[in-house]
Protein backbone atom coordinates (compact mmCIF):
# COMPACT_ATOMS: atom_id res chain seq x y z
CA UNK A 1 0.00 0.00 0.00
CA UNK A 2 1.25 3.43 -0.83
CA UNK A 3 -0.10 5.40 2.08
CA UNK A 4 1.96 5.09 5.22
CA UNK A 5 0.35 7.94 7.11
CA UNK A 6 -1.47 7.56 10.39
CA UNK A 7 0.32 4.44 11.55
CA UNK A 8 -0.74 5.00 15.15
CA UNK A 9 -4.25 3.70 14.41
CA UNK A 10 -5.93 6.96 15.33
CA UNK A 11 -9.68 6.82 14.69
CA UNK A 12 -11.52 9.42 12.63
CA UNK A 13 -14.67 8.60 14.62
CA UNK A 14 -13.46 9.66 18.07
CA UNK A 15 -15.23 12.86 19.18
CA UNK A 16 -14.43 15.68 21.60
CA UNK A 17 -16.51 16.02 24.76
CA UNK A 18 -18.25 19.38 25.15
CA UNK A 19 -19.83 20.85 28.28
CA UNK A 20 -23.25 22.40 27.87
CA UNK A 21 -23.10 25.88 29.40
CA UNK A 22 -26.61 26.89 28.50
CA UNK A 23 -29.61 25.22 26.83
CA UNK A 24 -32.90 26.92 25.94
CA UNK A 25 -35.90 25.89 23.87
CA UNK A 26 -36.27 28.74 21.39
CA UNK A 27 -39.35 27.43 19.56
CA UNK A 28 -41.59 24.46 20.27
CA UNK A 29 -39.09 22.15 18.51
CA UNK A 30 -35.70 23.94 18.48
CA UNK A 31 -33.23 23.86 21.35
CA UNK A 32 -30.32 26.28 21.45
CA UNK A 33 -27.12 25.03 23.13
CA UNK A 34 -24.05 26.98 24.19
CA UNK A 35 -21.04 24.67 24.46
CA UNK A 36 -17.37 24.62 25.42
CA UNK A 37 -14.86 21.84 24.88
CA UNK A 38 -14.27 19.99 28.14
CA UNK A 39 -10.53 19.92 27.42
CA UNK A 40 -10.45 23.72 27.79
CA UNK A 41 -9.11 24.02 24.23
CA UNK A 42 -10.72 26.65 22.07
CA UNK A 43 -12.94 25.12 19.37
CA UNK A 44 -11.74 26.85 16.22
CA UNK A 45 -13.68 26.78 12.97
CA UNK A 46 -14.82 28.84 9.99
CA UNK A 47 -18.33 30.31 9.71
CA UNK A 48 -20.44 27.78 7.79
CA UNK A 49 -18.59 24.66 8.90
CA UNK A 50 -20.46 21.75 10.47
CA UNK A 51 -20.00 19.24 13.28
CA UNK A 52 -21.37 15.81 14.13
CA UNK A 53 -23.02 16.34 17.51
CA UNK A 54 -23.77 13.21 19.48
CA UNK A 55 -24.65 11.35 22.60
CA UNK A 56 -23.30 7.85 23.20
CA UNK A 57 -26.04 5.28 23.17
CA UNK A 58 -28.10 7.34 20.72
CA UNK A 59 -25.91 8.49 17.85
CA UNK A 60 -24.74 11.57 16.00
CA UNK A 61 -26.38 14.22 13.82
CA UNK A 62 -24.76 16.75 11.48
CA UNK A 63 -25.35 20.37 12.54
CA UNK A 64 -24.13 23.72 11.25
CA UNK A 65 -22.25 25.81 13.79
CA UNK A 66 -24.68 28.55 14.81
CA UNK A 67 -22.29 31.16 16.19
CA UNK A 68 -19.26 33.02 14.92
CA UNK A 69 -15.83 31.64 15.82
CA UNK A 70 -15.10 35.20 16.97
CA UNK A 71 -17.83 34.86 19.58
CA UNK A 72 -15.63 34.20 22.63
CA UNK A 73 -14.74 30.78 23.98
CA UNK A 74 -18.10 29.06 23.53
CA UNK A 75 -19.89 27.94 20.39
CA UNK A 76 -23.58 27.47 19.62
CA UNK A 77 -25.59 24.66 18.09
CA UNK A 78 -29.32 24.43 17.46
CA UNK A 79 -31.02 21.03 17.53
CA UNK A 80 -34.40 20.53 15.92
CA UNK A 81 -36.01 17.82 18.05
CA UNK A 82 -37.45 15.34 15.56
CA UNK A 83 -35.88 11.88 15.56
CA UNK A 84 -34.24 9.45 17.97
CA UNK A 85 -30.89 11.24 18.27
CA UNK A 86 -32.26 14.78 18.33
CA UNK A 87 -34.83 13.83 20.98
CA UNK A 88 -32.01 12.51 23.19
CA UNK A 89 -29.96 15.66 22.56
CA UNK A 90 -33.05 17.76 23.25
CA UNK A 91 -33.29 16.26 26.75
CA UNK A 92 -29.84 17.63 27.65
CA UNK A 93 -29.45 20.74 29.77
CA UNK A 94 -26.78 23.01 31.22
CA UNK A 95 -24.27 20.90 33.14
CA UNK A 96 -24.69 17.88 30.82
CA UNK A 97 -22.22 16.95 28.09
CA UNK A 98 -22.54 16.02 24.43
CA UNK A 99 -19.90 14.88 21.94
CA UNK A 100 -18.64 16.95 19.02
CA UNK A 101 -16.74 15.76 15.93
CA UNK A 102 -15.29 18.41 13.70
CA UNK A 103 -15.21 21.06 12.50
CA UNK A 104 -16.06 19.33 9.21
CA UNK A 105 -16.23 20.51 5.61
CA UNK A 106 -15.82 23.93 4.07
CA UNK A 107 -17.30 27.14 5.43
CA UNK A 108 -17.98 30.47 3.73
CA UNK A 109 -14.97 32.04 1.98
CA UNK A 110 -14.85 34.94 4.42
CA UNK A 111 -11.93 36.73 2.77
CA UNK A 112 -13.71 36.79 -0.58
CA UNK A 113 -16.67 38.53 1.09
CA UNK A 114 -14.53 41.27 2.63
CA UNK A 115 -15.10 44.70 1.15
CA UNK A 116 -18.22 43.46 -0.66
CA UNK A 117 -21.95 43.99 -0.23
CA UNK A 118 -23.51 40.87 1.28
CA UNK A 119 -26.99 39.35 1.14
CA UNK A 120 -27.87 36.34 3.28
CA UNK A 121 -31.11 34.53 2.48
CA UNK A 122 -32.18 32.16 5.26
CA UNK A 123 -35.31 30.03 5.38
CA UNK A 124 -36.54 28.45 8.62
CA UNK A 125 -33.91 26.49 10.49
CA UNK A 126 -31.48 27.54 7.73
CA UNK A 127 -30.91 30.63 9.86
CA UNK A 128 -28.85 28.55 12.32
CA UNK A 129 -25.81 27.74 10.14
CA UNK A 130 -25.72 31.21 8.55
CA UNK A 131 -25.90 32.84 11.97
CA UNK A 132 -22.16 31.98 12.17
CA UNK A 133 -21.60 34.33 9.22
CA UNK A 134 -24.10 36.98 10.36
CA UNK A 135 -22.31 37.29 13.70
CA UNK A 136 -18.93 37.25 11.97
CA UNK A 137 -19.94 40.15 9.75
CA UNK A 138 -21.37 42.11 12.70
CA UNK A 139 -18.15 41.51 14.66
CA UNK A 140 -16.07 42.81 11.74
CA UNK A 141 -18.60 45.25 10.38
CA UNK A 142 -16.07 47.67 8.84
CA UNK A 143 -14.61 44.87 6.71
CA UNK A 144 -17.83 44.43 4.71
CA UNK A 145 -20.00 46.65 2.50
CA UNK A 146 -23.81 46.85 2.73
CA UNK A 147 -25.24 43.89 4.62
CA UNK A 148 -28.79 42.64 4.01
CA UNK A 149 -30.44 39.65 5.69
CA UNK A 150 -33.65 38.01 4.46
CA UNK A 151 -35.27 35.58 6.86
CA UNK A 152 -38.43 33.62 6.12
CA UNK A 153 -40.37 31.36 8.49
CA UNK A 154 -43.58 29.39 8.21
CA UNK A 155 -45.35 31.25 11.02
CA UNK A 156 -44.39 33.93 13.59
CA UNK A 157 -44.00 31.06 16.12
CA UNK A 158 -41.20 29.59 14.02
CA UNK A 159 -38.99 32.67 14.19
CA UNK A 160 -35.67 31.66 15.72
CA UNK A 161 -33.34 33.76 17.89
CA UNK A 162 -36.01 36.35 18.78
CA UNK A 163 -33.50 38.45 20.72
CA UNK A 164 -31.18 38.53 17.73
CA UNK A 165 -34.03 39.40 15.40
CA UNK A 166 -35.07 42.26 17.64
CA UNK A 167 -31.51 43.59 17.72
CA UNK A 168 -31.06 43.16 13.97
CA UNK A 169 -34.31 45.01 13.22
CA UNK A 170 -32.95 48.06 15.08
CA UNK A 171 -29.37 47.70 13.91
CA UNK A 172 -28.35 50.52 11.55
CA UNK A 173 -25.34 48.39 10.53
CA UNK A 174 -27.51 45.93 8.65
CA UNK A 175 -30.73 45.78 6.67
CA UNK A 176 -32.86 43.01 8.17
CA UNK A 177 -36.10 41.93 6.47
CA UNK A 178 -38.35 39.04 7.38
CA UNK A 179 -41.49 37.35 6.16
CA UNK A 180 -43.83 34.56 7.22
CA UNK A 181 -45.89 32.23 5.05
CA UNK A 182 -48.85 32.24 7.45
CA UNK A 183 -49.32 35.23 9.79
CA UNK A 184 -51.13 35.36 13.10
CA UNK A 185 -53.23 38.26 14.37
CA UNK A 186 -50.25 40.02 15.92
CA UNK A 187 -47.99 39.83 12.86
CA UNK A 188 -47.47 43.23 11.24
CA UNK A 189 -44.66 42.35 8.87
CA UNK A 190 -44.44 40.91 5.37
CA UNK A 191 -46.48 37.86 4.41
CA UNK A 192 -45.42 35.53 1.61
CA UNK A 193 -42.57 33.32 0.51
CA UNK A 194 -39.03 34.63 0.95
CA UNK A 195 -38.65 35.73 -2.65
CA UNK A 196 -41.32 38.40 -2.08
CA UNK A 197 -38.69 40.35 -0.12
CA UNK A 198 -36.66 41.01 -3.27
CA UNK A 199 -39.22 43.50 -4.59
CA UNK A 200 -39.08 45.43 -1.31
CA UNK A 201 -35.45 46.49 -1.55
CA UNK A 202 -33.20 48.01 -4.17
CA UNK A 203 -30.00 47.29 -2.29
CA UNK A 204 -29.21 44.00 -4.02
CA UNK A 205 -26.96 44.75 -6.99
CA UNK A 206 -25.15 42.44 -9.42
CA UNK A 207 -21.97 42.90 -7.34
CA UNK A 208 -23.56 41.54 -4.15
CA UNK A 209 -22.15 38.33 -2.66
CA UNK A 210 -25.02 36.05 -1.67
CA UNK A 211 -25.43 33.17 0.77
CA UNK A 212 -28.51 30.93 0.64
CA UNK A 213 -29.56 28.39 3.26
CA UNK A 214 -33.02 26.95 3.71
CA UNK A 215 -35.37 24.11 2.81
CA UNK A 216 -34.49 22.28 -0.46
CA UNK A 217 -37.39 23.86 -2.37
CA UNK A 218 -36.18 27.41 -1.65
CA UNK A 219 -32.87 27.49 -3.56
CA UNK A 220 -34.03 27.52 -7.16
CA UNK A 221 -36.59 30.25 -6.54
CA UNK A 222 -34.05 32.51 -4.81
CA UNK A 223 -31.52 31.86 -7.58
CA UNK A 224 -34.16 32.83 -10.16
CA UNK A 225 -34.53 36.22 -8.44
CA UNK A 226 -30.75 36.67 -8.32
CA UNK A 227 -30.52 35.82 -12.02
CA UNK A 228 -32.99 38.60 -12.75
CA UNK A 229 -30.92 41.08 -10.75
CA UNK A 230 -27.84 39.90 -12.64
CA UNK A 231 -25.85 38.45 -9.75
CA UNK A 232 -23.28 36.13 -11.36
CA UNK A 233 -23.56 32.52 -10.16
CA UNK A 234 -19.96 32.65 -9.00
CA UNK A 235 -21.10 35.21 -6.40
CA UNK A 236 -23.75 32.87 -4.98
CA UNK A 237 -22.92 30.42 -2.17
CA UNK A 238 -25.36 27.70 -1.21
CA UNK A 239 -25.25 25.91 2.13
CA UNK A 240 -26.70 22.42 1.55
CA UNK A 241 -28.29 19.82 3.78
CA UNK A 242 -28.03 16.06 3.25
CA UNK A 243 -28.21 12.89 5.27
CA UNK A 244 -24.73 12.29 6.74
CA UNK A 245 -23.50 9.49 8.93
CA UNK A 246 -19.71 9.76 8.99
CA UNK A 247 -18.91 13.39 8.15
CA UNK A 248 -15.58 12.34 6.63
CA UNK A 249 -16.43 11.39 3.05
CA UNK A 250 -16.77 7.64 3.52
CA UNK A 251 -20.34 6.56 4.29
CA UNK A 252 -21.75 7.81 0.97
CA UNK A 253 -25.05 9.21 2.23
CA UNK A 254 -24.42 12.87 1.40
CA UNK A 255 -23.01 12.27 -2.07
CA UNK A 256 -24.15 14.54 -4.92
CA UNK A 257 -22.51 13.33 -8.12
CA UNK A 258 -18.80 13.16 -7.25
CA UNK A 259 -19.07 15.65 -4.36
CA UNK A 260 -19.46 14.83 -0.69
CA UNK A 261 -21.48 17.51 1.10
CA UNK A 262 -19.63 16.75 4.36
CA UNK A 263 -16.17 17.25 2.83
CA UNK A 264 -16.61 19.41 -0.29
CA UNK A 265 -19.47 21.41 1.27
CA UNK A 266 -21.77 22.06 2.96
CA UNK A 267 -20.99 25.47 1.42
CA UNK A 268 -20.64 25.37 -2.37
CA UNK A 269 -20.08 28.16 -4.86
CA UNK A 270 -23.17 27.81 -7.00
CA UNK A 271 -21.29 28.11 -10.31
CA UNK A 272 -19.31 25.03 -9.32
CA UNK A 273 -22.33 22.81 -8.74
CA UNK A 274 -25.04 24.28 -10.97
CA UNK A 275 -24.49 21.56 -13.58
CA UNK A 276 -24.46 18.78 -10.98
CA UNK A 277 -27.74 16.93 -11.19
CA UNK A 278 -29.46 16.34 -7.84
CA UNK A 279 -27.65 19.28 -6.16
CA UNK A 280 -30.44 21.87 -6.07
Amino acid at each position, binding site marked *: MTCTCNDNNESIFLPHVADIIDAQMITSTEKHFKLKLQSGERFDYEPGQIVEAGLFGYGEVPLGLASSPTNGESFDLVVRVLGKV*TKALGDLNAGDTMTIRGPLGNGFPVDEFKGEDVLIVAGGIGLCPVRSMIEYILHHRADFGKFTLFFGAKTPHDLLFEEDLEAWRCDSCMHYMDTVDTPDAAWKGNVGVITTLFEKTTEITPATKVIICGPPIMYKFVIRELDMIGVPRSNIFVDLERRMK*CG*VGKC*GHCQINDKYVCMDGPVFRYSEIETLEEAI
Partner: protein
Amino acid sequence: MKSYFLSDQNLSAFVEGLMSKYPVIAPVAKRSRFVFDKLVDVSELRLDYDTTILPPKKVFFPAKQDLIHFNKDGFTSAIDPQEQVLLGAHPHDIKGIAMSDIFYSDREYDNNYMANRKATIIIGSSVQNHYKHAFFGTMNADRGLTGHDAFMTKIEGGYAVDAVTEKGESLVALGAFEDATEAQVAAATEVNRKAEEDCPEKLNGTAAEIREKVRNSFDSPVWDEFAEKCFSCGSCNIVCCTCYCFDVQDEWNVDGASGSRFRLWDACLTTEFSEVTSPGGSENFREDRGERYRHRFMRKAAYLNEQLGGPACTGCGRCSGACTADIANPATVINKILEQ
Protein backbone atom coordinates in the same frame (compact mmCIF):
# COMPACT_ATOMS: atom_id res chain seq x y z
CA MET B 1 9.25 -11.09 -7.25
CA LYS B 2 10.22 -14.75 -7.16
CA SER B 3 8.30 -17.71 -8.59
CA TYR B 4 7.97 -21.08 -6.91
CA PHE B 5 6.21 -24.36 -7.49
CA LEU B 6 4.13 -26.14 -4.84
CA SER B 7 2.90 -29.62 -5.74
CA ASP B 8 -0.69 -30.71 -5.13
CA GLN B 9 0.57 -33.20 -2.52
CA ASN B 10 2.33 -30.43 -0.59
CA LEU B 11 -0.56 -27.92 -0.58
CA SER B 12 -2.22 -29.24 2.60
CA ALA B 13 0.99 -29.14 4.61
CA PHE B 14 1.62 -25.54 3.51
CA VAL B 15 -1.90 -24.43 4.46
CA GLU B 16 -1.59 -26.22 7.80
CA GLY B 17 1.67 -24.34 8.30
CA LEU B 18 -0.19 -21.08 7.67
CA MET B 19 -2.98 -22.13 10.04
CA SER B 20 -0.46 -22.83 12.79
CA LYS B 21 0.77 -19.22 12.61
CA TYR B 22 -2.33 -17.21 11.66
CA PRO B 23 -6.10 -17.41 11.43
CA VAL B 24 -6.62 -18.30 7.75
CA ILE B 25 -9.72 -16.99 5.94
CA ALA B 26 -10.34 -18.94 2.73
CA PRO B 27 -13.10 -20.13 0.38
CA VAL B 28 -15.12 -23.03 1.80
CA ALA B 29 -18.33 -24.67 0.62
CA LYS B 30 -21.65 -23.55 2.07
CA ARG B 31 -24.50 -25.69 0.71
CA SER B 32 -24.46 -25.17 -3.06
CA ARG B 33 -22.22 -22.12 -2.91
CA PHE B 34 -19.00 -20.84 -1.34
CA VAL B 35 -18.08 -18.32 1.33
CA PHE B 36 -14.88 -16.86 2.77
CA ASP B 37 -14.64 -18.27 6.27
CA LYS B 38 -11.99 -19.15 8.85
CA LEU B 39 -10.47 -22.52 8.02
CA VAL B 40 -10.93 -25.02 10.83
CA ASP B 41 -9.59 -27.98 8.88
CA VAL B 42 -7.46 -27.84 5.75
CA SER B 43 -9.81 -30.30 4.01
CA GLU B 44 -12.44 -27.52 3.87
CA LEU B 45 -10.33 -25.40 1.52
CA ARG B 46 -11.93 -25.07 -1.93
CA LEU B 47 -9.56 -23.25 -4.28
CA ASP B 48 -11.72 -24.59 -7.12
CA TYR B 49 -14.61 -22.28 -6.04
CA ASP B 50 -16.33 -20.16 -8.70
CA THR B 51 -17.23 -17.19 -6.51
CA THR B 52 -18.24 -16.52 -2.92
CA ILE B 53 -21.62 -15.17 -1.80
CA LEU B 54 -19.97 -12.12 -0.19
CA PRO B 55 -16.71 -10.59 -1.38
CA PRO B 56 -13.56 -10.70 0.77
CA LYS B 57 -14.02 -7.06 1.86
CA LYS B 58 -15.74 -8.50 4.93
CA VAL B 59 -12.33 -9.61 6.21
CA PHE B 60 -11.32 -5.94 6.74
CA PHE B 61 -14.73 -4.30 6.82
CA PRO B 62 -17.19 -6.69 8.50
CA ALA B 63 -20.91 -6.22 7.83
CA LYS B 64 -21.11 -4.90 11.40
CA GLN B 65 -17.97 -3.27 12.74
CA ASP B 66 -17.56 -1.63 16.13
CA LEU B 67 -16.05 1.86 15.93
CA ILE B 68 -16.18 3.01 19.56
CA HIS B 69 -16.86 1.33 22.90
CA PHE B 70 -18.36 3.55 25.59
CA ASN B 71 -19.30 3.30 29.24
CA LYS B 72 -20.19 5.77 31.97
CA ASP B 73 -16.55 6.78 32.40
CA GLY B 74 -15.68 7.49 28.79
CA PHE B 75 -15.07 5.95 25.40
CA THR B 76 -12.30 4.21 23.45
CA SER B 77 -11.61 3.39 19.83
CA ALA B 78 -12.51 -0.17 18.83
CA ILE B 79 -9.61 -0.44 16.38
CA ASP B 80 -7.87 -3.69 17.28
CA PRO B 81 -6.22 -5.28 14.22
CA GLN B 82 -5.36 -9.00 14.36
CA GLU B 83 -2.81 -10.60 12.06
CA GLN B 84 -4.55 -12.95 9.64
CA VAL B 85 -4.21 -14.52 6.22
CA LEU B 86 -6.72 -14.15 3.40
CA LEU B 87 -6.08 -17.14 1.17
CA GLY B 88 -7.56 -17.77 -2.25
CA ALA B 89 -8.80 -14.34 -3.35
CA HIS B 90 -9.37 -14.29 -7.11
CA PRO B 91 -7.50 -11.64 -9.13
CA HIS B 92 -10.61 -9.50 -9.63
CA ASP B 93 -11.33 -9.62 -5.90
CA ILE B 94 -7.76 -8.47 -5.23
CA LYS B 95 -8.46 -5.52 -7.55
CA GLY B 96 -11.62 -4.81 -5.55
CA ILE B 97 -9.61 -4.78 -2.33
CA ALA B 98 -7.06 -2.41 -3.90
CA MET B 99 -9.94 -0.07 -4.84
CA SER B 100 -11.34 -0.21 -1.29
CA ASP B 101 -7.86 0.62 0.01
CA ILE B 102 -8.00 3.84 -2.03
CA PHE B 103 -11.53 4.70 -0.82
CA TYR B 104 -10.58 4.25 2.82
CA SER B 105 -7.19 5.97 2.70
CA ASP B 106 -7.89 8.87 0.34
CA ARG B 107 -8.57 12.26 1.99
CA GLU B 108 -9.55 11.08 5.49
CA TYR B 109 -7.55 8.02 6.50
CA ASP B 110 -9.87 5.41 8.03
CA ASN B 111 -7.93 3.13 10.34
CA ASN B 112 -11.03 1.15 11.22
CA TYR B 113 -10.54 -0.41 7.79
CA MET B 114 -6.87 0.26 7.10
CA ALA B 115 -5.51 -1.23 10.33
CA ASN B 116 -7.27 -4.53 9.55
CA ARG B 117 -6.08 -4.31 5.99
CA LYS B 118 -2.44 -3.84 6.95
CA ALA B 119 -2.61 -6.74 9.41
CA THR B 120 -3.79 -9.12 6.67
CA ILE B 121 -1.53 -11.16 4.40
CA ILE B 122 -3.27 -11.76 1.08
CA ILE B 123 -2.52 -14.86 -0.97
CA GLY B 124 -4.45 -14.78 -4.23
CA SER B 125 -5.39 -17.75 -6.38
CA SER B 126 -6.30 -18.25 -10.01
CA VAL B 127 -9.87 -18.78 -11.21
CA GLN B 128 -10.38 -22.50 -11.76
CA ASN B 129 -14.13 -22.36 -12.38
CA HIS B 130 -16.15 -19.41 -13.66
CA TYR B 131 -19.18 -17.92 -11.96
CA LYS B 132 -21.88 -17.80 -14.64
CA HIS B 133 -22.21 -13.98 -14.41
CA ALA B 134 -18.48 -13.14 -14.37
CA PHE B 135 -17.06 -10.59 -16.83
CA PHE B 136 -13.74 -9.76 -15.19
CA GLY B 137 -11.94 -10.51 -18.46
CA THR B 138 -13.36 -7.31 -19.93
CA MET B 139 -13.78 -5.12 -16.82
CA ASN B 140 -10.61 -3.43 -15.57
CA ALA B 141 -8.68 -6.26 -17.25
CA ASP B 142 -5.67 -4.02 -17.87
CA ARG B 143 -5.59 -2.84 -14.23
CA GLY B 144 -2.49 -4.28 -12.57
CA LEU B 145 -2.80 -6.55 -9.55
CA THR B 146 -1.59 -4.76 -6.43
CA GLY B 147 -1.94 -5.09 -2.69
CA HIS B 148 -1.53 -8.87 -2.42
CA ASP B 149 1.50 -10.62 -0.96
CA ALA B 150 1.54 -13.82 -2.99
CA PHE B 151 -0.42 -15.42 -5.82
CA MET B 152 -1.03 -19.11 -6.59
CA THR B 153 -1.94 -20.27 -10.07
CA LYS B 154 -3.26 -23.80 -10.58
CA ILE B 155 -1.18 -25.58 -13.17
CA GLU B 156 -0.64 -29.24 -13.92
CA GLY B 157 0.54 -31.13 -10.83
CA GLY B 158 0.30 -28.18 -8.42
CA TYR B 159 0.56 -24.41 -8.14
CA ALA B 160 2.90 -21.80 -9.58
CA VAL B 161 3.33 -19.38 -6.67
CA ASP B 162 4.54 -15.81 -7.02
CA ALA B 163 5.92 -14.23 -3.85
CA VAL B 164 5.13 -10.57 -4.46
CA THR B 165 6.17 -8.92 -1.18
CA GLU B 166 8.61 -9.68 1.61
CA LYS B 167 5.71 -11.00 3.68
CA GLY B 168 4.80 -13.28 0.80
CA GLU B 169 8.40 -14.42 0.49
CA SER B 170 8.51 -15.23 4.21
CA LEU B 171 5.64 -17.72 3.78
CA VAL B 172 7.75 -19.91 1.54
CA ALA B 173 9.46 -21.31 4.65
CA LEU B 174 6.12 -22.82 5.68
CA GLY B 175 5.90 -25.23 2.76
CA ALA B 176 7.87 -27.53 0.45
CA PHE B 177 8.33 -24.95 -2.29
CA GLU B 178 10.65 -25.52 -5.25
CA ASP B 179 11.90 -22.90 -7.66
CA ALA B 180 9.48 -22.72 -10.59
CA THR B 181 10.72 -23.71 -14.02
CA GLU B 182 10.34 -21.37 -16.98
CA ALA B 183 7.72 -23.73 -18.37
CA GLN B 184 5.72 -23.57 -15.13
CA VAL B 185 5.85 -19.76 -15.10
CA ALA B 186 4.70 -19.69 -18.73
CA ALA B 187 1.93 -22.19 -17.96
CA ALA B 188 0.68 -19.96 -15.12
CA THR B 189 0.59 -16.89 -17.35
CA GLU B 190 -1.46 -18.82 -19.89
CA VAL B 191 -3.88 -20.12 -17.24
CA ASN B 192 -4.62 -16.58 -16.04
CA ARG B 193 -4.95 -15.24 -19.59
CA LYS B 194 -7.36 -18.05 -20.46
CA ALA B 195 -9.41 -17.39 -17.30
CA GLU B 196 -10.03 -13.85 -18.52
CA GLU B 197 -10.81 -14.98 -22.04
CA ASP B 198 -13.29 -17.62 -20.85
CA CYS B 199 -15.52 -15.27 -18.86
CA PRO B 200 -19.16 -16.02 -19.70
CA GLU B 201 -20.17 -12.34 -19.88
CA LYS B 202 -18.46 -9.62 -21.88
CA LEU B 203 -18.35 -5.87 -21.41
CA ASN B 204 -17.66 -3.54 -24.33
CA GLY B 205 -15.79 -0.25 -24.15
CA THR B 206 -12.73 1.19 -22.45
CA ALA B 207 -12.69 2.81 -19.03
CA ALA B 208 -12.73 6.27 -20.63
CA GLU B 209 -15.59 5.40 -23.02
CA ILE B 210 -17.63 3.99 -20.15
CA ARG B 211 -16.99 7.07 -18.01
CA GLU B 212 -18.02 9.48 -20.73
CA LYS B 213 -21.02 7.58 -22.06
CA VAL B 214 -22.46 6.77 -18.65
CA ARG B 215 -21.84 10.31 -17.42
CA ASN B 216 -23.68 11.73 -20.44
CA SER B 217 -26.63 9.37 -20.02
CA PHE B 218 -27.91 11.00 -16.82
CA ASP B 219 -31.22 11.92 -18.43
CA SER B 220 -31.55 8.70 -20.43
CA PRO B 221 -34.81 6.73 -20.02
CA VAL B 222 -32.72 3.59 -19.60
CA TRP B 223 -32.51 3.98 -15.80
CA ASP B 224 -36.26 4.02 -15.29
CA GLU B 225 -36.66 1.15 -17.73
CA PHE B 226 -34.41 -1.10 -15.68
CA ALA B 227 -35.48 0.28 -12.31
CA GLU B 228 -39.14 -0.39 -13.02
CA LYS B 229 -38.53 -3.91 -11.70
CA CYS B 230 -36.27 -2.83 -8.80
CA PHE B 231 -37.38 -3.94 -5.32
CA SER B 232 -35.02 -1.37 -3.70
CA CYS B 233 -33.66 -4.25 -1.62
CA GLY B 234 -29.98 -3.30 -1.89
CA SER B 235 -28.76 -6.87 -2.54
CA CYS B 236 -26.59 -5.59 -5.39
CA ASN B 237 -24.86 -3.24 -2.91
CA ILE B 238 -24.40 -5.81 -0.20
CA VAL B 239 -22.66 -8.40 -2.42
CA CYS B 240 -20.53 -5.81 -4.25
CA CYS B 241 -16.80 -5.96 -3.67
CA THR B 242 -16.39 -2.18 -4.15
CA CYS B 243 -19.50 -0.88 -2.34
CA TYR B 244 -18.30 0.72 0.87
CA CYS B 245 -21.21 2.83 2.13
CA PHE B 246 -22.29 2.35 5.71
CA ASP B 247 -24.73 3.46 8.35
CA VAL B 248 -23.59 4.31 11.89
CA GLN B 249 -25.69 3.30 14.91
CA ASP B 250 -25.36 3.10 18.67
CA GLU B 251 -26.32 0.15 20.83
CA TRP B 252 -26.47 -0.34 24.62
CA ASN B 253 -25.16 -3.46 26.28
CA VAL B 254 -27.55 -5.33 28.57
CA ASP B 255 -26.07 -3.50 31.59
CA GLY B 256 -27.66 -0.31 30.26
CA ALA B 257 -24.51 1.62 31.13
CA SER B 258 -22.07 0.66 28.37
CA GLY B 259 -22.34 -0.01 24.68
CA SER B 260 -20.88 0.48 21.26
CA ARG B 261 -21.09 2.73 18.24
CA PHE B 262 -20.78 0.58 15.13
CA ARG B 263 -21.11 0.79 11.38
CA LEU B 264 -23.22 -1.46 9.21
CA TRP B 265 -23.05 -2.03 5.48
CA ASP B 266 -25.61 0.23 3.87
CA ALA B 267 -27.17 0.27 0.42
CA CYS B 268 -27.87 3.29 -1.78
CA LEU B 269 -30.69 1.40 -3.52
CA THR B 270 -32.82 1.45 -0.38
CA THR B 271 -35.40 4.19 0.14
CA GLU B 272 -33.97 5.41 3.46
CA PHE B 273 -30.43 5.96 2.21
CA SER B 274 -30.79 9.64 1.28
CA GLU B 275 -33.69 10.46 3.54
CA VAL B 276 -33.61 13.10 6.27
CA THR B 277 -36.24 13.65 8.92
CA SER B 278 -38.11 16.92 8.55
CA PRO B 279 -41.09 18.42 10.34
CA GLY B 280 -44.15 16.33 9.61
CA GLY B 281 -42.29 13.63 7.69
CA SER B 282 -39.14 13.34 5.70
CA GLU B 283 -37.25 14.78 2.77
CA ASN B 284 -35.71 12.28 0.38
CA PHE B 285 -32.92 13.48 -1.91
CA ARG B 286 -33.29 10.38 -4.14
CA GLU B 287 -36.94 9.53 -3.82
CA ASP B 288 -37.49 7.53 -7.03
CA ARG B 289 -36.00 4.08 -7.44
CA GLY B 290 -34.85 5.14 -10.91
CA GLU B 291 -32.75 7.88 -9.31
CA ARG B 292 -31.26 5.43 -6.83
CA TYR B 293 -30.59 2.82 -9.50
CA ARG B 294 -28.93 5.48 -11.67
CA HIS B 295 -26.86 6.70 -8.72
CA ARG B 296 -25.32 3.27 -8.25
CA PHE B 297 -24.27 3.07 -11.90
CA MET B 298 -23.15 6.70 -12.03
CA ARG B 299 -21.04 6.20 -8.96
CA LYS B 300 -19.40 2.99 -10.18
CA ALA B 301 -18.98 3.85 -13.83
CA ALA B 302 -18.48 7.62 -13.78
CA TYR B 303 -17.73 9.28 -10.43
CA LEU B 304 -15.40 6.67 -8.93
CA ASN B 305 -14.05 5.92 -12.41
CA GLU B 306 -12.52 9.44 -12.23
CA GLN B 307 -10.87 8.68 -8.91
CA LEU B 308 -9.64 5.18 -9.82
CA GLY B 309 -8.90 5.57 -13.52
CA GLY B 310 -11.40 2.78 -14.24
CA PRO B 311 -14.91 1.80 -13.14
CA ALA B 312 -15.37 0.80 -9.49
CA CYS B 313 -16.35 -2.65 -10.72
CA THR B 314 -14.33 -5.83 -11.00
CA GLY B 315 -16.63 -7.91 -13.16
CA CYS B 316 -17.15 -10.50 -10.42
CA GLY B 317 -20.84 -10.80 -11.33
CA ARG B 318 -22.08 -11.15 -7.75
CA CYS B 319 -24.66 -8.35 -8.18
CA SER B 320 -26.14 -10.05 -11.24
CA GLY B 321 -26.56 -13.27 -9.29
CA ALA B 322 -27.99 -11.57 -6.21
CA CYS B 323 -30.64 -9.50 -8.00
CA THR B 324 -34.10 -11.05 -7.75
CA ALA B 325 -35.41 -8.88 -10.58
CA ASP B 326 -32.38 -9.63 -12.80
CA ILE B 327 -31.69 -5.98 -13.57
CA ALA B 328 -28.31 -5.54 -11.87
CA ASN B 329 -25.90 -7.00 -14.45
CA PRO B 330 -23.39 -4.19 -15.12
CA ALA B 331 -22.33 -5.73 -18.42
CA THR B 332 -25.92 -5.63 -19.72
CA VAL B 333 -26.59 -2.10 -18.46
CA ILE B 334 -23.29 -0.53 -19.52
CA ASN B 335 -23.31 -2.27 -22.91
CA LYS B 336 -26.81 -0.88 -23.51
CA ILE B 337 -25.63 2.63 -22.68
CA LEU B 338 -22.57 2.28 -24.90
CA GLU B 339 -24.85 1.36 -27.81
CA GLN B 340 -26.91 4.54 -27.46
